């Protein structure tokens, strides 16, 4: 188990966390026939005041990990320490106290606000639930929050349907800020928004971080967004961390072949650079997390895969010539100037079709 630290004190320490979802069958007496390995042994530290970006394809477990950190999903194994306390087994009033410190911003601004309730009462929810402010005081604080996130406080009595997507996401941000949390987990906060609105919301989040000293876990599949906001970035693949590094190093010198492929697929605004760039097209689909591949999980799709990758799981460690905080889980990390596009894997490719055991 490796525990990378980036200096400063650690706010969240995720230690070897597993989250499996059982697949059940049966009408009354259900038996587990398989499990989805959504998060499979992830260790990450989040330093106070930093933004940790988590990127990966759909279904790689990044949202599940986020929900484990916020306590929405109980973990299957491992521990999560928040500010020194283990939060994996919290219940009742202690869980409620923890919820004050950790808030979440959701992906879908249309789904995360109750369409039948007025915005004022949605933002006031945290105050009501934690019995903090009452009556006029509550209203004043809600309007303060609305102003803080750039909404017109006069719109207190409106319904979510009367706002645009970007404004709704601001409502979500205001709700998350209400209790002055220490950590905000942003689960793809901008992927449902127009590009022009994305920038506004991201800048709002950055400004708020500066102003209120927030710590973010920022989940996205858009690499350029993550690069813009994150101090450090973790790349996830099939429930595991493939690479973790300070964000500039990761983008300049990715070591894991998967990170290389991801970066090569991201769009570049400069057409000259874009033309020169070689795209690495991965073969096959993401294997099913029900039955993940042996050894290195990326081996069925990896252009550099060899026999060793099938049998031996690579450790997440710093490679030769990398800074200490740049770790990658790969037996054969990509060297500078290496061309991955022309390489073909030397091992027999395993089928990547998702298979469900038939019961």
């Amino acid at each position, binding site marked *: 188990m490796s525990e990378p630290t980036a200096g400063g004190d650690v706010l969240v320490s995720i230690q070897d966390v597993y989250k499996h979802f059982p697949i059940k069958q049966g*009408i*009354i007496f259900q038996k587990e026939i398989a499990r989805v390995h959504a998060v499979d042994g992830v260790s990450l530290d989040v330093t106070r005041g930093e933004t940790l970006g988590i990127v990966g394809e759909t279904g790689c477990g990044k949202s599940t990990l986020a*929900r484990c950190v*916020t*306590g*929405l999903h109980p973990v299957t194994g491992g521990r999560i320490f928040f500010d020194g306390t283990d939060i994996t087994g919290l219940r009742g009033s202690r*869980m*409620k106290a923890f*919820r*004050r410190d*950790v*808030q*979440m911003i*959701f*992906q*879908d601004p*249309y*789904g*995360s*606000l*109750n*369409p*039948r*309730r007025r915005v004022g009462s949605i933002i006031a*929810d*945290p105050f009501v*639930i*934690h019995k903090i402010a009452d009556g006029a005081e509550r209203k004043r604080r809600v309007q303060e929050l609305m102003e803080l996130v750039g909404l017109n406080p006069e719109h207190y009595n*409106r*319904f*979510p*349907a*009367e706002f645009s997507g970007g404004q709704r996401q601001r409502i*979500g941000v205001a*709700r998350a800020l209400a*209790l002055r949390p220490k950590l905000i987990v942003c689960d793809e906060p901008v992927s449902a928004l127009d590009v022009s609105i994305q920038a506004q919301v991201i800048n709002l989040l950055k400004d708020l971080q500066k102003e209120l000293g927030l710590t973010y876990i920022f989940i996205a599949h858009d690499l350029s967004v993550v690069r813009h906001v994150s101090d450090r970035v973790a790349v996830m693949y099939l429930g595991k961390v493939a690479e973790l590094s300070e964000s500039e190093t990761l983008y300049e010198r990715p070591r894991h072949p998967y990170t290389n492929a991801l970066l090569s697929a991201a769009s570049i605004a400069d057409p000259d650079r874009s033309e020169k760039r070689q795209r690495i097209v991965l073969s096959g689909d993401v294997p099913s997390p029900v039955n993940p591949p042996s050894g290195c999980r990326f081996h069925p799709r990896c252009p550099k895969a060899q026999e060793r990758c099938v049998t031996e799981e690579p450790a997440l460690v710093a490679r030769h010539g990398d800074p200490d905080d740049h770790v990658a889980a790969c037996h054969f990390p990509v060297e500078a100037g290496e061309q991955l596009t022309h390489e073909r894997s030397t091992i027999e490719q395993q089928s990547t079709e998702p298979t469900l055991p038939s019961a």
Partner: protein
Amino acid sequence: MSLTELETEVAPADAEPTRTIQGRTPWQLAWARLRQDKVAIISSIIIIVILLMAIFAPVLTHWFGTDPTKTNTNTGLDADGLPIGPSADHLFGTDHLGRDIFSRAVYGARVSLEVGLLSTFFATIVGVTIGLLAGYFSGWADAVISRLLEIVLSFPYLIVALVAAATIGPSKTMVIVVIASFSFAAMARIVRGQVIAIKAREFVEAARSLGASRLRILVIDILPNLLAPVIVLVTLLIPQAIVTESTLTFLGAGVDIRIPSWGGMLSESTQYYRVAWWYLFVPSGMLLLTTLVFNLLGDGVRDALDPRSERIMARAGKSGKTSRRWRTPSEPGSAGAVSGR
């Protein structure tokens, strides 16, 4: 669509640039759509008339008829001892005992509406509660409740009602209890499905991450979103309950035969309709009208609350004119659909 048509559509926007866009709540949108629905409006007017008729039954019968329970063999029957047809004295004629059918039909509305509304009320309370619990607490509780609901739904209610009437005797309370204890299952099933759908929405997760209690999530976050499908189902359950009540009374297992009710009148008229068509016609007509308008209103309400329902789509597809009518912006998932999802 031709170019000229396109232009006419654009023009009004330039004509009134000062018009402020005002956001409307999902309920306002639904109400705007319902108001456009002539059938639904006419149906609700008729429902109000029937309701008023039931409430003011004593006044109405005082003015236009006679006491519904008073047998009148002197003036209520003709020389051969047969019922009298509709006339100035008896608007809808008389029955085999010379009783005024208009008065009996008016009083019959009381029984039908009382049973229909009360049994639906109880069915809704019980059904929504059970549906909420089953949908929210998935797992074995849900499995057990769902199986029980299926058993209730597959039970032949008529036989149960007949047995109940035979053992505890026919009464209005018995009818209400029997109807409510069968129709709650339909309500519970639909609510359960809706709760499962709503539970997966992010705003419920948001409430959980804020530390909201289960009760708060159920009452504040989920319940308001159930209102639309529940209202629709209520408007459909009421006529069903009215028909069931009449059926039971017709079979002698429902309301006391001495109380004027549509089912009871139908039951008696079967022996006399050859000589007195109005005897059969009035109660069956009232029954038909009442159930029809409730059902039509239910359809209208469903369309208004769920703009994506198939009926509207079909109507909008037929003619361009109507399609514009329905082009009100709607919030995704604002109205729950009873069918479909």
